[in-house]
């Protein structure tokens, strides 16, 4: 399929306002009073045009007239380095220098719909599409050159976008195209480069955005400054489902800079000229508001008991008739139960978005994980045709799943609707983020297994109690908290529980009988996807339990795991971990504890094994996590430093969850409203971190961003057991949970 010029014009016309472009940081932004503030002084970017069809090269690769390559991805940069990794893949297949490549992230006005940037899926998904598109683009260009010269393409060489066909035959991609778009179909037949010829893939290419960050250049949605932009704050209720009884709006209306106060049911917001004026007004609104607040419950003390009593009847995910009998008749059988509390994303910067409403059209600059799902859901919220909504993805502060990014985007849009023709920038306050983000669900995991006299596991029975791990607003406005607070509220319908609850609950270990029951539970707190979803709790349980089994069998924990594994790559990460850490010599080091754990994320992505080392201080009844060593196999590694960076980060973050974190709440609401009531790991507690990569360039790349979360939790629990003899089965693992008397 190829649009003729006329068709294209018609097409562009019909998509109307979408083309009236906004660059990411428009030039107006440069008009700041600090003239030294440089930004975007390099390539201005290819001119905007809508994405047509994801099966066309043009949806992924665009060559402008002056020698640049633009890569388009529907995925967002979340700090995971996806921009660089995807550019490496494209430059590799196209045979162009990385320096001339640029990338555009999710933008409903330009890029393909790739859903959410989630599940460690960007390299596997977008990377694959871009690789195919780039290979196809190269093939098309070679064919064009071949036609021009009347030669076969097999003899043609490419170097930085210049095709060479012999002594006098040289032409660049851009000369060949003469400004034409690459609208050929991606057949999937274009040859992919052999990994032995890779120049960029597998190389630790530095992230270009880090240069911007160290220079204090504009990068985040928070840094967006549009002409005539105004500032907003939202007053959230004190607790879920609270209704606004009264509020003194008159008091602030005359304050300096206040442009508008919005009260729509229990949704209250203020717009001001300057940000601080909005913050001050927000404080006044908060103090003058009265709410009818329902009680929150069950509380933490009764939560896990309540799960057992009030969960739905089990969903049988995996069945194995007669498994209880098999466990009971095993040589050895054990049973244990593990718990994970509610934990938060806790992004460093509160969520922020900018929205502008012109006539019927709405534009939202958002740190969302999915611009198309955002567009869908805003369409539901406003009853507005999708074509009239443009969502432009921009980097936010740390994204580890479904945090406040979508909510703040919807709220910015709600406010912009009340204040048309001016861009509205909304940033949450710290307490908004802590109180209103959807948390990772509390879980209870009960495991029972039997093994034979040699330490071979025979049967494994899993029961999970959990609230949902996905309430992403994919088309349903009721998933936005503030949509539920409007005078004409949208209902929140959970819409079924997701598979996220039992992610990684099925052991990868080889055994004849496995059963998995999931008890879905409606808990007291708002929950959704947090890095790893249920895998964090499930692997914590599974890999702690493996250690308990190893101990029962009297076997070395690594040897025990290997004995029960068939998967060669799984065995390889464990063996590499043992050799890199000198595992054998570590076993009898007094005053220390060592714990290992392993998983293959989602049982389909990266392999990761980790050793945690703790120092035990019996006199002070305390311990310290001193070092963690990880080994990761993500198949073909696109950027080893990017992979390491993300894995190191996952390890530290998981260690923080595991040792410190639990959302506190009482019947009046969330108590964890800031960093002192929800402490996370800081420098003095961060252990030494080491990451080793097993690169397999001959294989496909596999998602890696969430691989460390679960194993780290179990490795720490296992190290505490090794060092103190106490098996802590309830997260977080705090010193007071260790039986120091027994030790």
């Amino acid at each position, binding site marked *: 399929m190829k649009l003729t010029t006329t068709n294209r014009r018609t097409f562009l016309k019909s998509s109307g306002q979408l083309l009236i472009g906004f660059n990411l940081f428009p030039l107006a932004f440069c008009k*700041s*009073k*600090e003239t*030294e*503030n440089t930004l975007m002084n390099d390539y201005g970017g290819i001119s905007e045009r809508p994405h047509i069809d994801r099966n066309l090269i043009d949806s992924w690769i665009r060559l402008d007239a002056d020698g640049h390559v633009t890569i388009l991805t529907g995925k967002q940069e*979340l*700090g*995971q380095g996806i921009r660089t990794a995807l550019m490496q893949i494209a430059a590799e297949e196209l045979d162009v220098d990385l320096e001339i490549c640029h990338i555009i992230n999710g933008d409903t006005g330009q890029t393909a719909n790739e859903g959410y940037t989630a599940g460690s899926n960007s390299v596997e998904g977008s990377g694959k599409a871009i690789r195919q598109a780039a290979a196809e683009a190269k093939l098309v260009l070679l064919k064009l050159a071949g036609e021009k010269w009347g030669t076969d393409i097999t003899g043609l060489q490419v170097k930085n976008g210049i095709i060479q066909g012999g002594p006098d035959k040289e032409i660049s991609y851009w000369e060949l195209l003469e400004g034409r778009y690459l609208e050929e179909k991606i057949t999937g037949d274009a040859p992919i480069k052999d990994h032995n010829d890779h120049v960029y893939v597998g190389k630790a290419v*530095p*992230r270009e*955005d*880090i*240069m911007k*960050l*160290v*220079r*204090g*250049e*504009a*990068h*985040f949605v*928070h840094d967006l400054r549009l002409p005539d932009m105004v500032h907003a704050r939202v007053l959230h209720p004190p607790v879920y489902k609270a209704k606004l009884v009264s509020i003194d709006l008159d008091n602030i209306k005359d304050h*300096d800079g206040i442009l508008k106060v919005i009260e729509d049911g229990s949704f209250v917001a203020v717009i001001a000229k*300057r*940000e*601080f*004026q909005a*913050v*001050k007004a927000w404080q006044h609104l908060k103090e003058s508001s009265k709410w009818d607040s329902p009680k929150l419950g069950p509380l933490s003390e009764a939560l896990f008991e309540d799960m057992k009593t009030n969960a739905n009847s089990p969903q049988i995910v995996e069945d194995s008739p007669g498994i209880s009998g098999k466990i009971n008749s095993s040589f050895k059988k054990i049973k244990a139960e593990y718990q994970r509390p509610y934990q938060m*994303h806790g*992004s*460093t*910067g*509160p969520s922020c978005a900018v929205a502008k409403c012109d006539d019927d059209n709405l534009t939202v600059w958002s740190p969302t994980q999915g611009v198309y799902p955002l567009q869908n859901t805003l369409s539901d919220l406003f009853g507005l045709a999708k074509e009239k909504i443009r969502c432009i993805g921009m*980097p*936010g*502060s*740390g*994204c580890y799943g479904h945090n406040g990014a979508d909510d703040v985007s919807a709220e910015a849009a709600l406010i912009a609707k009340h204040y048309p023709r001016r861009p509205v920038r909304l940033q949450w306050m*710290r307490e908004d983020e802590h109180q209103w983000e959807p948390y990772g669900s509390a879980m209870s995991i009960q495991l029972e297994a039997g093994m034979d006299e040699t330490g071979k596991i025979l049967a494994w029975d899993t029961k999970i109690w959990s609230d949902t791990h996905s309430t992403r607003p994919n088309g349903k406005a009721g998933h936005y908290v503030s949509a539920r607070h409007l005078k004409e509220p949208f209902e929140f319908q959970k819409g079924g529980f997701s598979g996220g609850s039992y992610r990684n609950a099925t052991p990868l270990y080889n055994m004849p009988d496995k059963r998995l029951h999931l008890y879905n539970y409606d808990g007291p707190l708002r929950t959704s996807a947090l890095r790893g979803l249920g895998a964090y709790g499930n692997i914590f349980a599974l890999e702690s339990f493996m250690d308990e089994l190893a101990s029962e069998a009297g076997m070395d924990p690594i040897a025990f795991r290997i004995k029960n594994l068939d998967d060669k790559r799984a065995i390889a990460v464990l063996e590499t971990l043992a050799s890199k850490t000198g595992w054998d010599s570590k076993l009898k080091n007094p005053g220390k504890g060592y714990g290992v754990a392993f998983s293959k994320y989602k049982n389909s992505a990266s392999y990761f094994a980790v050793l945690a080392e703790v120092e035990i201080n019996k006199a002070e009844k305390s311990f310290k996590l001193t070092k963690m060593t990880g080994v990761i196999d993500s198949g073909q590694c696109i950027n080893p*430093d990017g992979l390491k*960076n*993300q894995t*190191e*980060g*996952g390890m*530290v*973050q998981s*260690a*923080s969850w595991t040792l410190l974190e639990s959302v506190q709440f009482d019947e009046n609401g969330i108590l964890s409203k*800031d*960093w*002192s009531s929800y402490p*996370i*790991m*800081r*420098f*003095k507690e*961060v252990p030494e*971190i080491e990451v080793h990569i097993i690169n397999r360039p001959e294989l496909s790349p596999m998602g890696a961003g969430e691989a460390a979360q679960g194993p780290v939790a179990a490795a720490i629990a296992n190290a505490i057991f090794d060092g103190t003899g106490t098996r802590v089965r309830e997260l977080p693992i705090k010193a007071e949970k260790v039986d120091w008397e027994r030790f």
Partner: protein
Amino acid sequence: MTVKAQLDLNGKKVQVEVDEKEPLLYVLREEFGLNGPKFGCGLHQCGSCMVLVNGEAVPSCIQPCKSFEGKKIETIEGLEKGKGLHPLQESFFEEQAAQCGYCLNGMMIAGLALLRSNPKPNENEIRDALEPVICRCGTHTRFISAIKKASSKTTKF
């Protein structure tokens, strides 16, 4: 009530007229278009908004702009001084010390304050200096490496 404030910002004398209570952070971002200092908590708990004030790393999200009069304010935007990247910027880039990067400002400012008073810090001193700054992506070990690296490049910060 608005007040006039004279500031010494990144080596320049500047003047603003703002609400007497307006914290420095908002003035830096809104009036001077700076991106380095960021709003993180507004509670002096996270360090996202740190700036150098007379060489010390200080949060800017609560104290009124006016209270910074007569003090030397520096942000990461002021580091380059026309001579290319500052060694600390170089080191953070070379170590690829960022994931989302939201906390980077606080890390660099806290690191810079340390290096100015102690150009050859040991690891514990680096950890102490960075302790007030929250990083949620878990990039801590790279920040420590970046500061060590900067320390090996020069003694003048």
